[in-house]
């Protein structure tokens, strides 16, 4: 019980520790630093792009995307190399429906 009372007392004292707090003061020459930052803030588009790309999250996501594209290309190449028949069967219909088939005009003009 005594321990609990002690704990409650500590908690209350901690909660009340900021009751008479004084306002923290900003560092000197704030205005000068604000103006300096405003001048510095005029970055070019390329600087902004460089900053964006160099962010760890963007760089990591970009790297993952490149690896994923590579993996997809490799998988697709492997599967097409293993199934050459697919390519052949795809060619067959174009042979059957060749443009060299005689037209109605040819049939109608068989005699001079």
């Amino acid at each position: 019980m005594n321990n609990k009372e002690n704990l409650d007392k500590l908690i209350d004292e901690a909660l009340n520790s900021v009751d008479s707090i004084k306002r923290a003061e900003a560092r000197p020459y704030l205005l000068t630093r604000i103006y300096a930052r405003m001048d510095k803030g005029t970055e070019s588009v390329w600087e902004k792009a460089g900053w964006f790309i160099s962010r760890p999250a963007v760089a990591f996501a970009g790297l993952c995307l490149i690896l994923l594209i590579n993996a997809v290309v490799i998988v697709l190449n492997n599967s097409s190399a293993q199934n050459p028949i697919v390519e052949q069967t795809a060619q067959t219909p174009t042979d059957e429906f060749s443009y060299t088939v005689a037209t109605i005009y040819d049939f109608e003009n068989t005699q001079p």
Partner: protein
Amino acid sequence: MNQPELIAQLQQGDEQAFKKLVDEWQDMVYNTVLGIVQNADDADDITQEVFIQVFQSVSSFKGDSKLSTWLYRIAVSKALDHEKKKKRKKRFGFVHSLFGGQDEDEQIHSVEFEHPGVELEKKEKAAALFSALKQIPDNQRIAFTLHKLEGQTYQEVAEIMNTTLFAVESLMGRAKANLKKELGNYYNNLKER
């Protein structure tokens, strides 16, 4: 110079008016931000960002609220944005550590925060309170910071947070309950060590 005049001059891009604004409100902005981010360097950076934002967007300020309310809102929003960025950075910290780097934020924030305005004999207890403050939800933390650190009334906190007086009372009640719980855990952990 009254506030409407100051705002009008700021909207015309008057540098003297901007200087007056910074001189008058810099401590208020810095103290609010410091209470939220609990780091003097970060608070200094964010304070600069707040005034840059004010300079750039004062033309859109219609005077619906008090200038101080508007400044508080920008300060709170910038401080919370910074906290979110920091959390995101921590999530990707493991990638950085894979390449042998050390997480700078973790190094900085492993040290307990000491607010410069706290009385010397209360420093230790205030450090425990600030540590507990980091564990409670953002809106409760904002209400507590504005009321306790900035001395704003519940009504003023409600205006800054764009909510009702009843909601602020409820937020403060929950903030105190959560802080008691966190402080209890903090002191129990201290005993076990």
